[in-house]
């Protein structure tokens, strides 16, 4: 009896978990890219760190809410099973959420921190420690969290890819596809925030974010491409499952909305915006509205990738 067990809660979680991973990754990178005590990307690091914990924590609530017995979720943390991607993922999420919260606190300005901790009961050693000045710890926290952000980004793909009975998922490319999609959605969120931040555009910030996002989207594209080619050259079950996107219910949403509008269109806009820097080494003048549109397209693309994979994967099977 074939049923679709994982629906929109899981899709949203996969998107939100990836988004946090991307936000943290870019923020950590910006934190670590200090140049002779000069911090050209301080705003990226700060916004990224302030935003990173929340999507993944919301996603975790969705995950727990999706369980048949939500109050048994603690049982996930009574076991560590190396062969179960979900078990590894639960631990990664727990550790990553903790580290991203730590970076959040470390990135608060002094008055913000005081305002926040006034409202909390001022007892307990941990709270006292957190209410102290952690800003000197930003770089170690960022460096510590970096591998965990990659872990959270990649595990969502491993979760699906490790299911041997679903030919649509069971390739070695889904994990990387999800990772680079995750990193690009985090990057896009920061582009969106900077575009809406009101102040004038700092060319140096946009250069970093666009460069990173071009890298992520290009990598994602060159993973989607071999995914399709290898699938078509693979065994019958895989070829049949690819029909879901090559001539089935997900064809339109895959080619037009995900690959076209969600991946290639923003990639083209970003390359166009970067052209002056790439070609003539001059300073580019970035357009704010265009940046916002690009970011929204990338975010929609990241969501649609997960939508397509969660549903199409569950519909695929050996005959």
């Amino acid at each position: 009896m074939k049923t679709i067990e994982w629906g929109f809660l899981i899709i949203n979680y996969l998107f939100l978990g990836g988004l946090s991973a991307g936000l943290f990754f870019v923020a950590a990178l910006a934190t670590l890219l200090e140049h002779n005590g000069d911090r050209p990307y301080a705003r990226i690091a700060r916004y990224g760190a302030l935003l990173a914990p929340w999507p993944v924590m919301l996603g975790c609530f969705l995950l727990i809410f999706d369980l048949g017995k939500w109050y048994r979720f603690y049982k996930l943390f009574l076991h560590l099973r190396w062969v179960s991607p979900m078990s590894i993922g639960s631990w990664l999420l727990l550790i990553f959420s903790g580290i991203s919260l730590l970076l959040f606190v470390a990135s608060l300005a002094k008055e913000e921190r005081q305002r926040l901790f006034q409202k909390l009961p001022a007892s307990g050693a941990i709270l006292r420690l957190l209410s102290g000045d952690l800003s000197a710890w930003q770089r170690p926290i960022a460096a510590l969290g970096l591998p965990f952000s990659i872990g959270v980004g990649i595990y969502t793909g491993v979760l699906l890819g490790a299911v041997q009975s679903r030919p649509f998922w069971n390739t070695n490319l889904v994990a990387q596809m999800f990772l680079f999609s995750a990193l690009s959605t985090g990057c896009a969120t920061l582009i969106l925030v900077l575009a809406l931040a009101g102040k004038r555009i700092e060319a140096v910030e946009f250069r970093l974010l666009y460069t990173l996002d071009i890298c992520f989207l290009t990598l994602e594209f060159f993973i989607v491409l071999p995914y399709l080619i290898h699938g078509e050259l693979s065994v019958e079950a895989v070829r049949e499952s690819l029909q879901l996107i090559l001539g089935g219910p997900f064809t339109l949403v895959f080619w037009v909305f995900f690959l076209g509008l969600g991946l290639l269109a923003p990639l083209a806009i970003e390359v166009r915006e970067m052209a002056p820097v790439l070609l003539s080494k001059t300073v580019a003048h970035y357009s704010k509205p265009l940046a916002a549109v690009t970011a929204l397209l990338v975010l929609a693309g990241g969501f649609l990738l997960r939508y397509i994979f969660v549903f199409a994967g569950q519909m695929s099977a050996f005959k």
Partner: protein
Amino acid sequence: MAARQKRYALAIDARKCINCKACSVACRAENRVPLGKGRNWMNEELRGEYPKLMAVFEAEQCHHCADPACVRVCPTGASYQRPDGIVAIKDTECVGCRYCVVACPYDARFFREDRGVVEKCDLCAKRVDRAELPACVETCPSKVRVFGDLNDPNSKLHELLSKRQYRLKKPEAGTGPQIYYLL
């Protein structure tokens, strides 16, 4: 000499099946399976064209795989395999994530919305432990189902599998299924 480790399995002689569905009814009664779900089910197929027709009835349920994907992906260890090969679920450990339902190549598991946990065929492990047959096997009027221990050379199952040709379903999924469909 120590007793040999048991390995329970099922053979299905589909040509004998008359599609009475007594196996499904017996399972439903034995395991209190709600309507609309099933631990076992019938695959019905019509082949050929009139007047050369054939109806194929093939019973299916959990294949109690040698290398079960459901057990591997379970994050809490609720899905487990007994030493005698039976794949079962520890009800109290299941969190209802449904990863196993997604991972089963045979779609042999289902989610009980009312109980919030996953259920499946456990070859009536409680009956088997009392040296009784699984309910579906016991009730089958045309003796389609043969339950036994693969490691017992005196069992009917052992004899059938050494004398008859058989087919496994979806062995390419790589889980080592243990329902033997006799040809």
